């Protein structure tokens, strides 16, 4: 978890940078990203032809590169970018580039507290994970579905163990992929390996696999469930008893299975993205109870409201008591909590954000090209040309708003008590 205690929670507005002036300083300015605490804003810039760098709060990094991409702040407010110098790639963290160089790097991940930074890398056509500048000891022929444990100490990916000639469909069907955890592959191979999940204690790994062209199941620490299905989606670990659950498909319907056995007594047209509440007591999932209708099911019981287009961005409150999501009906996006749809429909809505105690919820929304926030169901009247996800203060009484007001080019961070928002 990020420590928000030491952020500036003093009420009031702070102008951080006028990013409009950056356009005059550089040949090009890409889209800006603010730090989680709102104190910094940064963008990839072009100081000169064929040169890339990063501008942070108006100050440009000392180094210039052939190319910079995937600019991202970590949860601890450190700024990272994937950079290339004379065709050698690495990660730069707060201006300091890692010592190891690769032929390509991508897919930056952070541990929940931001302490660990992890990327995927390719060198001489071989693939590996890299944590804080330390590459895996083993590299692989191919790698995808790169995943990181919450504490950032463990990394895993689907890797190719057995080579096959291009077009050798039969070799492939024998099983040539496995899961490598911290660079060490499981002893057995599968036809396919997809979504990978870590246990809450970061010690166990589960993955969605296909054992032949037709049978799907879940493998936990390398051992497949005894049962197979016509399809599976991403598995999850329970924090209570380290059991593993996953959506599984049989007879054309989706169900939730635990350790291979059906758990919920209900079948769905679709069931995916199931999640455990932080205390592990409740499971929620995005489901289609009937063709073309979408909702959330909590412990197998679907909400009575449904959306015709989609449901996405489902999230538990930190205390596990509430579930929120984004839904879309006839092209209009809205927010729903515990089966109740908030008033207001938007051109886009972002994942709802809960306060720590779960009592307050806010979400970024967009309408007619202007951005704003909905807080506890009420739309903030103020509009922004750009806004980022809001963040609640540790006590949940204040909201940190990071945005660029309508018609302005200045980026502000603003701390507002909830009581004064409306």
């Amino acid at each position, binding site marked *: 978890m990020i420590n928000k205690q030491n952020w500036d929670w003093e009420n009031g507005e702070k102008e951080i940078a006028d990013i409009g002036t950056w356009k005059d300083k550089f040949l090009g300015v*890409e889209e800006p990203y603010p730090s989680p605490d709102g104190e910094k804003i940064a963008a990839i810039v072009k100081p000169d032809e064929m040169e890339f760098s990063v501008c942070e709060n108006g100050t440009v990094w000392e180094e210039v590169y052939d190319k910079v991409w995937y600019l991202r702040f970590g949860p601890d407010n450190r700024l990272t970018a994937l950079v290339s110098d004379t065709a050698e790639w690495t990660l730069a963290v707060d201006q300091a580039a890692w010592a190891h160089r690769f032929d*390509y790097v991508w897919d930056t991940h952070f541990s929940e507290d931001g302490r660990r930074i992890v990327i995927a890398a390719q060198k001489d056509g071989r693939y590996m994970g890299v944590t804080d500048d330390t590459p895996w000891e083993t590299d692989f022929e191919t790698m*995808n579905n790169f995943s990181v444990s919450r504490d950032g100490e463990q990394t895993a990916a689907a890797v190719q163990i057995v080579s096959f000639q291009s077009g050798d469909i039969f070799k492939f069907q024998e099983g040539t992929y496995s899961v490598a955890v911290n660079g060490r592959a499981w002893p057995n191979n599968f036809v396919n390996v997809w979504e990978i999940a870590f246990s809450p204690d970061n010690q166990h790994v589960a993955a969605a696999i296909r054992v032949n*062209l037709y049978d799907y199941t879940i493998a936990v620490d390398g051992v497949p469930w005894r049962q197979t299905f016509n399809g599976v989606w991403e598995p999850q670990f329970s924090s209570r008893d380290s059991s593993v659950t996953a959506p599984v498909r049989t007879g054309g319907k989706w169900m939730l299975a635990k350790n291979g056995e059906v758990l919920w007594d209900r079948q769905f047209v679709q069931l995916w993205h199931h999640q455990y509440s932080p205390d592990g007591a409740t499971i929620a999932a995005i489901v289609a109870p009937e*063709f*073309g209708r979408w909702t959330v099911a909590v412990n197998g019981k679907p909400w009575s409201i449904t959306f015709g287009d989609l449901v996405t961005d489902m999230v538990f409150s930190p205390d596990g008591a509430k579930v929120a999501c984004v839904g879309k009906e006839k092209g209009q996006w809205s927010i729903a909590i515990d089966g109740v749809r908030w008033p207001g429909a938007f051109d886009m809505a972002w994942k709802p954000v809960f306060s720590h105690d779960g009592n307050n919820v806010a979400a970024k929304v*967009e309408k007619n090209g202007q951005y704003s926030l909905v807080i506890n169901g009420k739309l903030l009247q103020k509009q922004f040309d750009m806004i980022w996800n809001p963040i609640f203060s540790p006590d949940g009484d204040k909201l940190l708003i990071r945005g660029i007001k309508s018609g302005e080019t200045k980026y502000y961070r603003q701390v507002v008590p909830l009581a004064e928002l409306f």
Partner: protein
Amino acid sequence: MTESVSKESSLIADEGLDKGLARLTSEKIEKTIKTILTNETGARLKTYVSTCVHCGLCSDACHVYLSNRDPACSPVGKIKQTIWEIVKKKGKVDAQFIRRASEIAYTECNLCRRCAMYCPFGIDISYMILIVRRICHKLGVTPHYLQDTAQSHSATLNQMWVKDDEWVDTLQWQEEEAQDEIGDLRIPIDQEGADFFYSVIAPEPKFRAQLIYQAAVIFHSAGVSWTMPATPGWDNSDMCMFSGDNEMMGRLKKAHFETAMRLKVKKIVMGECGHAFRSVYDVGNRWLGFREPPIPIIHSIQFFYELLKEGRIKIAKKYAKTVTLHDPCNTVRGAGLHEMIRMIAHETCEKVIEMHPNREHNYCCNAGGGVINCGPPFKNKRVENNSIKADQLRNVKEQGAETVIAPCHNCHGGLEDIIHTYKLDMDLKFLGDIIYECMEKPEE
């Protein structure tokens, strides 16, 4: 070459079919067929089988039949040799039968649905052919090249074994190339909140990267807000839909739609591909439980049409050669975009000559439905089975057409082989090629 195609073609060697055949037993065949007929078909198949009066009116709809006049190649002929027998014999068919059925289903029907328009009862032959393919997939008797593509989809979520890093690297390379032409052009990668995600099929980064370049120039000139993802899910194509691996089709479409949801885009604009459109707009979305695509899908034909209509791109100089139009089945018969193709052609080209028949009556290129993806073993047959398309092209060529516009990747592949084999000497273009060539571009 009258009645010979279907018989001769049985001799075509294909590793996927031949080795698949060796693994079959009559028990396995019967059990697999029974399971599929019971669990995955119902009233629709029964009605089709019992309604058909064998009138043969569908024959003249099919380019394969018209190209060699063999009743075995007529739509009803293909059904008679496959699903009818399967249903009649309740799955008690032998391995050789399955091999022939597989070859018919995968290489002699494009699922182009032209015949459905000519059947007095609206019987959809392509639906039944897809059931045959589903059976063949479950039996492991699929053409080698098509199966390899389906396996690529499963391992990489794209059609051509493109690795995660190769994808982004290609976008950055194309961006750099395009910046030589337009200094401030960008291919915005993974830009959350852009208006649309531009999705393509894997042959673009693999072989036709200049199409991404051209699209970037068009979007940049039009001043639209767009992005391309840094993650798998960027490929909209879907050979699993055609191989019969529906479960994998679902996984591919899930990745595609969820990439759009993750990027918070309002729509997906897709490149000039016909079958991918069918997959994201019709078949794949429904398999997942979505009535419509969860994020609206706009085909390039429609997107270019809108850009021209709204004056967001302007034509500097019209394309001088006389053009003709090939209507791709999936976007024309499937979605009615033909008048938009014509508007774009007339706006951008000096002279347009229509092929006949055209619009929703157009003949398929014989590449679609996964047929071209069955690869070199079936290439000659594919080209011979579409002499009618060659006649159509020759006819417009005699009237002066020099360039064929085909807004579909598979159509390109199919027409290229036809033009070459029948020595027609015509150019082949995408709409994007023509627009890129003729549009006003921002000053460097």
